[in-house]
């Protein structure tokens, strides 16, 4: 057993740190740290810098223009990026669609779409959930009907993150109602500028509108935009979900949140002393820090097993649950640490805000926004169902 990074991995970490040091604009890092709104330019600018370095698609094989990193390298990159408060790479093209096209797409689709993901020509979003199909995703009803060399799409998608910036959406659509509900689903690539596509923002409880509803009204999609085979989309969708696993634990985000919590607890005054010295509060921080120490090693153990070729099982479900629990506990403690100062609404426009309160507002915004962590990507209850299902078989 050896818990150290190899010399190669340490050298890689140094490269990542040096890159973040020189390329990450401090003002952008400040916005990320304070949970402030990132513009499309902010995100695209960061993508472009990573692409110039060849690091935008760490998870892609080199033959497709990716960096071909190991799971450990990806982990290092994600952790260092989080600690430096770099914007996270928008996952829809890079982490989600890319691996599906590489595995199931035609040669033409790969040649056409993959370079456009890397160079920023396309901004992808994800059309999975529907108003009636959330946790029960296979119950989706958005319909695609083949008419000659086109599919005609009618229906609605929802929770479409950053759909307002996207020009392309990959969708799970129903192409058959026969047999099991999982068997009539297809994976379709849709140009959002096609007539009949409407995007409507959904304002969330933190005041932001990062998610949207997307409506399809007789939208004509060229049949060549079907990925793989008709009615096999569920297989591709599941592949996509398992492929998005390396950063599911969010160790880097949690570590950055813990550092911030320690800083806040040292600065806030409680009974005339720093809050960090209050035994009740300090032991709550300690308990979650100890959880993070273990989860970080759970994450590395699972990455290391995957790197040695062990088939991924229920590990990502376990990391999803524990990782989101830890982050939500950290968010709650951070907001609590501010006590009576944490009452203002995070900025929603130009309506004013309390003085010297950027970080307090960030704590509130983060708490509100991160309620999503235990809901998206398969809610934690869905993950428990997956784990229990595997335990019942094992």
């Amino acid at each position, binding site marked *: *057993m*050896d*818990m*150290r*990074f*190899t010399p190669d*991995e340490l050298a890689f970490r140094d490269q990542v740190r040096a890159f973040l040091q020189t390329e990450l604009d401090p003002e952008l890092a400040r916005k990320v740290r304070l949970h402030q709104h990132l513009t499309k330019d902010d995100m695209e600018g960061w993508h472009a810098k990573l692409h110039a370095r060849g690091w935008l698609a760490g998870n892609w094989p080199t033959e497709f223009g990716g960096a071909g990193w190991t799971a*450990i390298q990806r982990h290092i990159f994600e952790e260092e990026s989080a600690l430096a408060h770099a914007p996270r790479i928008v996952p829809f093209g890079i982490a989600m669609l890319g691996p599906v096209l590489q595995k199931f797409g035609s040669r033409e689709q790969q040649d056409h779409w993959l370079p456009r993901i890397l160079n920023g020509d396309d901004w992808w979003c994800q059309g999975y959930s529907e108003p009636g199909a959330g946790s029960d995703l296979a119950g989706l009803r958005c319909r695609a009907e083949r008419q000659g060399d086109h599919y005609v799409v009618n229906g609605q998608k929802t929770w479409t993150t950053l759909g307002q910036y996207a020009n392309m959406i990959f969708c799970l659509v129903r192409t058959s109602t026969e047999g099991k509900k999982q068997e009539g689903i297809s994976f379709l690539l849709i140009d959002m500028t096609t007539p009949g596509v409407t995007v409507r923002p959904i304002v969330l409880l933190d005041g932001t509108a990062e998610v949207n509803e997307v409506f399809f009204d007789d939208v004509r999609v060229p049949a060549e935009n079907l990925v793989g085979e008709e009615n096999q989309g569920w297989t591709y969708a599941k592949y996509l979900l398992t492929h998005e696993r390396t950063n599911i634990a969010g160790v880097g985000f949690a570590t950055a949140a813990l550092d911030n919590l320690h800083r806040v607890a040292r600065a806030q005054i409680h009974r005339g002393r720093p809050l960090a010295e209050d*035994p009740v509060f*300090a*032991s709550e*921080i*300690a*308990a979650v*820090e*100890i*959880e993070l*120490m*273990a*989860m*970080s*090693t*759970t994450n*590395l*153990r699972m*990455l*290391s*097993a995957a790197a*040695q070729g062990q088939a991924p099982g*229920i590990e990502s*479900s*376990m990391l999803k*649950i*524990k990782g989101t629990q830890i982050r939500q506990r950290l968010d709650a403690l951070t907001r609590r640490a501010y006590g009576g100062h944490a009452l203002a609404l995070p900025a929603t426009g130009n309506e004013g805000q309390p003085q010297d309160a950027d970080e307090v507002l960030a704590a509130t915004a983060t708490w509100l926004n991160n309620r999503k962590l235990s809901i998206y990507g398969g809610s934690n*209850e869905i*993950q*428990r*169902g997956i*784990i*229990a*299902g595997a*335990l*019942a078989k*094992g």
Partner: protein
Amino acid sequence: MDFQLSDDHRMLQDSLRGILTRHTGEGLWPALAEAGVIAALLTEDEGGFDGSGAAVALIFQELGRAGAALPLIPTMIAGAALAQAGHEVPEGTVLAFADAEPGTRYDRGVAIRADGDSLTGRKTMVAGAEDAAAILVTTADALWLVQPGAPGLTLRGYPMMDGQRGADLILEATPATRLGALSDFGRPLARGVLAHSAHALGTITAAVDLTLDYLKQRKQFGQPLISFQALAHRAADLAVEVEQARSAVVNLSGHLTADASLRDRHLQACKVTLGRVARLVAEESVQLHGGIGMTEEYALAGMVRRLMTADTAMGDADWHLDRFARGEPAWA
């Protein structure tokens, strides 16, 4: 980054598993000694041949899984401490480690005091004391050696929750040899915490496996219990916590020889995590079983009692959490 067992440790694990299926009760200790398992707990300097965190973790996990109740942890701690202090380590025999005191939770040196070269006072919950060839005793800040037949020493034996025998020690001006300051023995004590934690992890996995088997096989309302979501989700949560516990043991075993401050943080984190998860598994496994889980006849009973001892020995989760939060070392 490599979390695999080495070839040597895999062989050790195989041989240990074989012994644990063939021997129980009185025959187990000599079989372990003969197979070199006990010597594997000590380093070469201490008269053994391994003593690494990985070896200690794997041996006690297997013992915990098998439900073995032997005073091996105090023997290991005392052996390592005696060797470090330049004393001869009695071979093949039980050694005792007297740490807890009545009425003081985990504070040391309240019920016992040193006066020159003698100790007066009480120690309690001393596993293996009745059979020990040497007894190590803690005071507020020092570690002492007391011979079993020393004048003024009285032992009162009793059964312990984990199936071992323990004893109260009553010392009245009992001659003792000071081995050194307690803080100098951070490494043997850390190895003791690792052993307790790994033993608990072994018991945890055994109890969770037994519980899952039961959930799959027991039917109510015409269906296996695991098909009921309220139970299935609790089982899933247990599985997640088992991995947390495993990682905490990996962290301490990987940092056993690290700098004292880093080692102690992992020690505290490990003890907090194992204490918490052991309690959770003890409580949940009984509840998920229902009434059968409370019967002495069923295998869970012994596991539950052993799980409850895991938290209590060498500082419980609350005690270590408090010191972790304050940034204090593991031992005063």
